[in-house]
Structures are given as C-alpha cells and as structure tokens.
C-alpha cells in the first residue's frame, strides 16, 4: 500500500496533486471529465475585489511545446464568488485554495478579509505577478520589499488560512523573493507562475496577443521550473521548513516526480488540463506506480531527494 498523503503546511492531503489556478475554473468545468474529489487539492482562478471582464482577444496563442495566455484576470469578483461559487465548491470534499489578485495592497487585503470568514477555504494563494498601480505599475512579485509588505498585510487579514505565495520566475534571483515571502509570514510557496513572453506575426508585424505580452506555460518551461524549484528548495524552503507547491509544464507522472525530487511537497497541473482535462487523475495514478516500482512507501520521502 503506497502512502500518497502529504502534509502541506499543516493540511493533510490525500495526494500531492493540485490543479493550478486559472486552469481549472472553479472546478465546475473539470467535474465534467473527472471526479474532483480524487484531487489532492485545487486552486480557483484569480479572484479580485471587483468583477473583471478580462482582456480583448486573442488571449491565447500556441508556441513551440507551449502556449501564451493573457486572460487579464477575468473573474466574477469576490462577493459573487462567495455567494455563488462557494456553495457549489462546498459539495467537493477536496480542499481548495483561492488565488487572489489586485492592483493595490488595499485591494488584496479587502479580498483576503472577505475570504478569511469562509470556513470552506483551506488557504489563499497570493498572485503577486500583478502590476501595482500605486507604484508605477511595477510587478509586486519582482521587488522583495513589496513582496514582504503585501505578504504581511495579507497574513494579518487572512485569519487562520494557509497563506501560499505564488512566485513569478521573471526575476533576477527568485530565492530573494521566496525569502521575503517566508519572512513576512507565508506558510507555503507556489512556483512558478508563467514567464512573460511575446509572439509576433511577421506578416503584419503585430503582436499576436491583444495584450501584446502573455505568460508562457507548457512543456517548454518545465526544465527551468524544475531548476528553480530545486534552487528555492535548497536555498530557502528546506532551511525554513516550508513546503513548495511546484509546477510548470507537467504533462505526466514522470514530470511531476522530477519536481518532487527537486524539492516539491506537492505539484500543480496547469496547461496539461487544457489538453487532457483528466491529466491530474492520471498523474496521481502514475505517482503510485512509480512508488511501487521504486519501493517507496511514502511519497513524501521523495521530496528533495535529488542526489
């Protein structure tokens, strides 16, 4: 009997597989294709204080072994989310995190305060890859001072919720940012968000995406994501005893295991769900088989086992 359970910042999960924010809606679309209760956990798409329509189209474009997206945080707003979506999500016995986003620290805090009272929510995932409109549009997640400020502000307002900070890879030294988040009270790290990227139509000399730039995801980013996971694990997470939820281009169980060996306590499945909406379930099964083959009794023994 393989033990796939993991302890994720005090939360016991039946397995280490999450579906990533922005790739599993509010779990309703996924439920058409699989039993959501089999997931370790899932993370809702980003929720903001007010409703957001999102960007103009094209919002997505395929690249070599990857894709760019610039959805623009389209969501129904936190109040409607609490009133309409939480009652639907409540039917699942899988823990879920709510990804929160905003344009100012005040906005993030307001969202966190509202969600802190919803007992169904296991934790918050802080999307810090948004531009801060009050600081000239600089991305929160690229400045350690801002990361520290926003993390501690939310920590104070998030009640007992697990606070997970989602790191952007578009920085010089990701470990500095990870340290800032942990010192400010983050209970877990989530990595990595997409890479800022661009595709140009050479016939029209225009950017393909209406937003010009978008976030690169998919297998194309996997080796970089594995490297960054291992770096953050060794330099920050392991010494601080903080779990990492890692992903970036995971398509199958072998990909997921690479991340776990690199230092992840849990893995997140994103773009793969677009192609095979039941990817996460197959990956859970594949993790079990790998453990059997390698005589690993507990999957948690694999975390950070890179030789």
């Amino acid at each position: 009997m393989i033990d796939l359970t993991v302890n994720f910042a005090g939360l016991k999960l039946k397995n280490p597989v999450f579906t990533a924010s922005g790739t599993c809606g509010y779990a309703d679309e996924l439920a058409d294709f699989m039993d959501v209760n089999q997931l370790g956990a899932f993370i809702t798409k980003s929720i903001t204080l007010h409703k957001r329509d999102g960007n103009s189209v094209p919002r997505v474009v395929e690249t070599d072994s990857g894709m760019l997206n610039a959805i623009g945080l389209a969501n129904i707003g936190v109040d409607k989310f609490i009133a309409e979506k939480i009652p639907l999500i409540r039917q699942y016995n899988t823990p879920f995190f709510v990804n929160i986003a905003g344009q100012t620290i005040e906005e993030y805090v307001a969202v966190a305060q509202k969600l802190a009272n919803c007992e169904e929510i296991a934790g918050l995932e802080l999307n810090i890859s948004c531009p801060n409109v009050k600081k000239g549009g600089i991305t929160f997640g690229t400045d350690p001072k801002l990361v520290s400020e926003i993390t501690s502000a939310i920590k104070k307002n998030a009640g007992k919720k697990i606070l997970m900070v989602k790191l952007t890879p578009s920085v010089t030294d990701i470990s500095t940012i990870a340290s800032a988040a942990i010192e400010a009270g983050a209970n877990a790290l989530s990595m990595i968000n997409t890479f800022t990227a661009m595709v140009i139509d050479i016939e029209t000399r225009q950017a393909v995406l209406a937003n010009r730039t978008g976030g690169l995801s998919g297998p194309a980013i996997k080796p970089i994501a594995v490297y960054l996971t291992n770096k953050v694990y060794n330099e920050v997470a392991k010494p601080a005893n903080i779990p990492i939820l890692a992903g970036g281009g995971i398509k199958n169980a072998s990909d997921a295991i690479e991340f776990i060996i690199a230092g992840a306590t849990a893995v997140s499945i994103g773009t793969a769900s677009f192609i095979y909406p039941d990817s996460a379930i197959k990956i859970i099964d594949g993790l079990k088989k790998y453990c059997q083959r390698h005589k690993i009794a507990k999957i948690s023994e694999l975390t950070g086992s890179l030789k």
Partner: protein
Amino acid sequence: MAETQFQKAIFTASVSYNKAIGKHFFNLRLELNGSAAEIFRKALPGQFTELDLSRLALPAEEQIPDELSECSQRQILLRRPFSFTNIEYSGSKVILEILYCVLGPATLRMKTLKPSDKINLIGPLGNGFKISSDKKLAILVAGGMGAPPLQHLAKELKDKCPGTETIVFAGAKNISQLPYYDIKLEKISQEPAFVLDEFAKHNVKALISTDDGSAGFKGFVTEMLKNWLKSKKPDSGKTIIYACGPEAMMSSAAAISSEFNIPCQVSLERLMACGTGLCQGCAVRYINKQTKETGYKLCCKDGPVFWADEVVW
C-alpha cells in the same frame, strides 16, 4: 443560447476515411462506438470536437508544401477544434464527418491519418444552432470554411422541420476556395438551384458567390444575401438566418439581419486553448439585450453559436 445540451467526455475514435476533396480540402470520417457513440449521436449542428493531433507524425518531407515547411517544424501542444459536416449513426456506431484544409502543423499531421488509425477527441462541445419549426424559410450563409456546420444544419432542418424551406448562400474568395466536392457550375444562376451536392442531398438549393467572380455572383456572399432579401422580401417573422464564416462576414450578416428584422444566429470562431471552458481564452464580447450590460462570454462553452444581436461586433 441554451445550456450545454449533453454530456461530454474524452474518447478514442477510429479513422474510417480521410481523402482530399479538390486541391485544398479533406474529408475525415471518424467512427465511434459504445458510450462515445451514444453521446455523439445526440450532438447538434454547430457543436464541435477538439482533436489531439499532437501525437501524429508529419508527412514525408517531400509531401510538405514549401509554404508550410517552416511551421511544420513546430511541436504542437494544444488540441484543434472542428465542427461536423455530418453525423451518421447506424446501429451502435456513429460516424463523424469533418471537413478541413491544411493550414499549419496540426492539419498537416491530420492529413496523414489513414483508416483504422486511432485519434483522441473531446466532445461534443459547446452549444449548437437552435431550430424551430414555426419558420417558413431558413437561410444559411456559408463563408469559405464556415460551411461544415451549415451542411449538418441543413440535414437537421430537413429531418426536424419539414415545413421549413432552406436555401444556402455559399461564398468564398474564389472558386477553388469553395469547400465543396462537386459544384455544378452549369446550374449556377441568379435563382437558388441544386448547385452543391452537399446541400442538394438535403433538398437545399444554393446561390454561389466568389469575391473574384470565378463562380456565381461577383462580390461578398453578404452582398448577394442583401440583394436577394431586398428583391424577395421574405416574411421576417417566419424567416431565420444562420451564418458561419469569417468574422467580418458574420458581422455583416448580423447587420443585414437587423436591417431586415430577421433573427440571426452565428457560429463564431476564436483561438482556443482547451475548448472546455477551462482556459477562458476564447472570449466573445456580449451584450445583454434587456439590461444592456456588456461583458465576455466564452466561445467554447457559451457558444460557438450566439444570437447575432447579442454579440458586440
């Protein structure tokens, strides 16, 4: 449009036929059995499927046209959406018919499919055209590769609305871009005629247009539609327009439908990553006619068929 009508799932289909129609187009037939057949036999015209073409091999190098040589080197990742020209069922099996043209690295791979090859698909996805038997006239407006779901719709109208007369306005840039197997050029006139076999077999007459005048009316299919409506003045309350084609053509069909006060449904196309509502990429700007509120809907999940007057063009 209505809520998603039927259950959808991930299935494996078996190729039963994959052959060229003319220079640019291919007809692919996929066979489904068991629960897949049960689900797909209820699929409506306008619904679609997402095919995983990423695992297919490329054709031999000498069979790759020069203009696709560079893009063929790209490793594809995402599925590709296709609507159906027809869904046939006999006994426990269902045949899905797909019309496609080779435009990039995915359809180049699709061309290599041969009978008994297996292919993974998701569907049926989205919402189809809404039909009602109180209409006397259904006008199908097909621009280029927008024809497939309208062929399927012609069959559905014949089966479900025997009291409705259906005619098709079929246009393309030029004669070779008309995606039909057999065009009876000698029968083309200014009156609808049995010109296209694909529609004639459903008792649907056609009017043809090409931008360059190489077949039928010279000009846009929507110009031909407008002229026809002006001269024939069909009873707007008993008429409905169904359009599928390039965005500009559908926008023009929407404007004409509003000018003649004829209800119109359009089947839209967007770049999609998933087709299942997960990625939120395929946004359609939408206006609620009652509240005048605007926002985005998803082409894959809320559409691809929309009422033309609910789309912000």
